């Protein structure tokens, strides 16, 4: 059916438009004269509108023909191996792709005014377009490899936008923390690909779902599922690797909203939903999901209540809700998790955009109702004893010492080993060193 093929191709091009926009802006930046804000914003909006049309076509395709496993061909092939361009268009990918397109277009319009005359305006639009391309690719990908490309694009743009105000030490340090967490947890996704390849000889979602159903539970299935869970934990800021999320609030509000309120932070949940037929075969992975999600939900909710700034409070609250989505995925409530994802992403997006005027909103609410959300939360704790309340407060304030433990047990030993090996090499080189004899004319 040639028309359906054309529609599939149009949907598959959804991630391409933002990339073209980003390339065009990069080329405009090559000459010494910078392009105008108006031109850059126009390029951004046009390409994001094209992307939105692609996402709408994806929804139409879902209603016309149901799920489609679309194989466009090979990106490259060499020596018996190839990189297939495979897309999976179904209800999940269509709905999340549409959400992505709408939120990105909204962000483009919002940031036109919010970041007007900001020195990094062009950089922001360029990174947002790259992020958009990555997010669409992640959502529409029909294989682990293609999803990984989108995953990486989302990760690197996230890091660069956290360091948007790079002249200060705080944002740069925060970006490093985000990068370290992302890179380490990406290993989970890469290992998942490796295990899938070894186990089922394919990384295409549809083929691997079929293969996993035939093979049933096994050690390989558990390894694949745990790799996926680890990758999702990093991207969705779950215990114990979620310390980066409040730090990521150093970026501009518009990027906080679209990355950590709505899209990027939910990418982990999307991965779990996408790969649900693989995770279902592993009881260990499902238990891990429930435990990690529940622990995060409780810890992040408490941390949110003791946060002194609005963006951190919303960030912790986001992690808490995402934790509940993990629990839902672990228990097999995939439809609930999908609805929760879309509703939560939309709500948090709005909340993040409102945070610059949080104080004004709180005052307005207090004037109208006589109380605020914080007052209500404080009232809930009245029933708990003072000592216990103080203990929990202290724990929440210390963020449950998770980062201190990670630093002590992981970062420091690695850095210690690195310095010890470096010291060994230095000592070896010093064996060949000899002091230069001082000349009589040299000063003492």
């Amino acid at each position, binding site marked *: 059916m040639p028309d359906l093929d054309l529609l599939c191709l149009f949907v598959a091009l959804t991630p391409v438009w933002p990339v073209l926009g980003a390339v065009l802006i990069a080329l405009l930046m*090559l000459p010494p004269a910078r392009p105008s804000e108006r031109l850059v914003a126009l390029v951004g909006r046009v390409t994001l509108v094209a992307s939105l049309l692609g996402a709408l076509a994806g929804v139409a395709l879902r209603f016309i023909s149901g799920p489609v496993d679309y194989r466009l061909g090979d990106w*490259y*092939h*060499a*020596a*018996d*191996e190839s*990189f297939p361009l495979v897309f999976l268009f179904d209800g999940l990918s269509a709905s999340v792709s549409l959400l992505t397109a709408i939120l990105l277009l909204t962000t483009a319009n919002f940031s036109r005014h919010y970041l007007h005359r900001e020195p990094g305006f062009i950089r922001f639009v360029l990174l947002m377009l790259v992020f958009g391309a990555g997010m669409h690719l992640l959502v529409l990908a029909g294989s682990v*490899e293609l999803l*990984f*490309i989108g995953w*990486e*694009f989302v990760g*690197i743009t996230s*890091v*660069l936008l956290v*360091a948007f105000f*790079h*002249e*200060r*030490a705080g944002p*740069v*340090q925060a*970006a*490093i923390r985000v*990068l*370290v967490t992302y*890179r*380490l947890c*990406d*290993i989970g996704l*890469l*290992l998942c690909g*490796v295990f899938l*390849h*070894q186990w089922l000889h394919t990384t295409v979602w549809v083929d691997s779902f079929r293969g996993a159903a035939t093979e049933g539970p096994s050690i390989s299935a558990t390894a694949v599922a745990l790799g996926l869970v680890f990758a999702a934990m990093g991207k969705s800021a779950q215990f114990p690797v979620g310390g980066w999320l409040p730090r990521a609030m150093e970026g501009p509000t518009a990027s906080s909203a679209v990355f950590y309120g709505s899209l990027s932070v939910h990418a982990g949940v999307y991965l779990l939903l996408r790969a649900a037929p693989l995770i279902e075969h592993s009881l260990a992975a499902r238990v891990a999901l429930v435990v990690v999600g529940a622990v995060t939900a409780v810890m992040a909710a408490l941390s949110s209540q003791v946060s002194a700034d609005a963006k951190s409070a919303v960030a912790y609250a986001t992690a808490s809700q995402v934790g509940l989505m993990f629990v839902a995925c672990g228990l097999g409530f995939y439809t609930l998790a999908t609805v929760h994802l879309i509703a939560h992403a939309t709500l948090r997006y709005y909340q993040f955009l409102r945070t610059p005027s949080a104080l004004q909103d709180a005052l307005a609410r207090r004037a109208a109702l006589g109380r605020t959300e914080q007052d209500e939360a404080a009232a809930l704790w009245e029933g708990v004893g003072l000592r216990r309340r103080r203990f929990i407060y202290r724990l929440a304030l210390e963020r449950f010492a998770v980062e201190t433990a990670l630093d002590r047990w992981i970062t420091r030993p*690695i*850095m210690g*080993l*690195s*310095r010890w*090996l*470096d010291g060994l*090499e230095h000592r*070896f*080189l*010093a064996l*060949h*060193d*000899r002091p230069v004899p001082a000349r009589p004319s040299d000063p003492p």
Partner: protein
Amino acid sequence: MKHTIVAVILPLLWLLPLLAAAVVQGLLRDHRQQRALAIATSSVVFGLAVVLLVVNGSGHAFARDDVEAGPVFLSLHYHMAVDGLNAVLLPMTAAFALASLLCAPRSDLRGDTTARILVVEAALLGSFLSMDAALLSLFWIASMLPLWQDTRRSGSRPLHVLMTMSLVATVVALLGAIALLANHGISLGLRAPLDLIAISRADVPPPALAGWLFLFAGLLRMGILPLHLWLTAAAARAPGYSAILALFTPLGSFALARVVIPLFPHVCEQFSSPLVILGTATALYGALLAVGQHDLRRVLGYFWVSQMGLVLAALAALNAPSVAGALMQAMSSVVEVGGLMLIALEVEARAGTTDMRLLGGLVRHAPRMATGFFLLSAAAVGFPGTISFVAEDLAIQGLLRQHPVAAGVLLIVTAINGIVLFKAGKRVFLGPPSPHTTALRSFEDLHGWEYLASVAMMGTLLVGGFVPEPLLAVRSGVVDALKRIELPTTGEP
């Protein structure tokens, strides 16, 4: 016609830079004239190398007969060829020499530096073209001499000792291998006993010890653990622009693919797994050491060691995708690490140091340099859309067939390397300026040729990454030829 073009261009490629070096050293006194002649020569050589790539850059020399063979003199046989294995390396080496000459501050090009760059360029091009073991060894050793001479004057005794040891070890290993091969060839009655094609076609395989010696020299050149010390020391302390070309070449991996794998398949078969383990250990070791460094040049030195470990592991796996990935990675590493090193040298030339504790916030003064550093870093760690992504994908796919643990470790190494480079970029370019220095106010951005060289490198990596098929097609002949090694015939120890 094609044959004539190749026959004319081949000797020009290595002779022109040598003649230019002689003129620069002996006849010209004016530094501007020296620089102009060197740049003109390198440009011509680059153009000729591109012509060779277009005309004859595919297939494998061992599978063809239209190679350029000359007379035999005292067993030394002038025999050079261009094929898929060296066709891309030729313009790349010439381009890198050109970039070094264009980007080096004019004050740094005084003295013998210009001539040294040209000599190293000629020696490397000669090595890549040689189809005779003695000729290859001669050029190989010649490519190390300028750097060795530089280290004598660098003031760092450990560096000079390491370079001397490395040079002596290379000379001994290559001379030993040549002696064994010559003895073998003469006993078989070969007209050119050191000719690589003649040896490969002989009924009796060459002695395994010669293969071991070539392998040792190759590993030393690649900076594989524990033979890496000269590479990291030179990357950190050697005088910059003249050393960069001598350091950042895939000559070691090229020698393995040109000599060791085709001529000594039994050696490769026997020690495939240990070499994969050695490569993986080197990759992990380099990444671990790079994490704790405070000097940008040292970071890049250890990162380079780590990358070479990955190349060795993939090459030693001896299957078609891993070899294709290794050859591609060896080539793209040159552009990436070489480009990063050029930026480090530009930082050193402007700020007087590459100690990251004394730097910071340079993006305010040098946004182009910072952008170039971060883009090259992303390319170096195999970010999707760059050549390294394709190379690493193929290498890992190949390794997965028989060495899944090594593949898993290399994935972790790639993640650590990403952290290493971004952290280094952050310490140099982002954040507030270091409180320990006030000399960065007049720091200048990339300009002129520096900027163009940086854009050209990024363009090469991105275009090659998005459209990798032509690059893979160039190497396909070589990979097909090496595929025969996957199941080598046994019978000879």
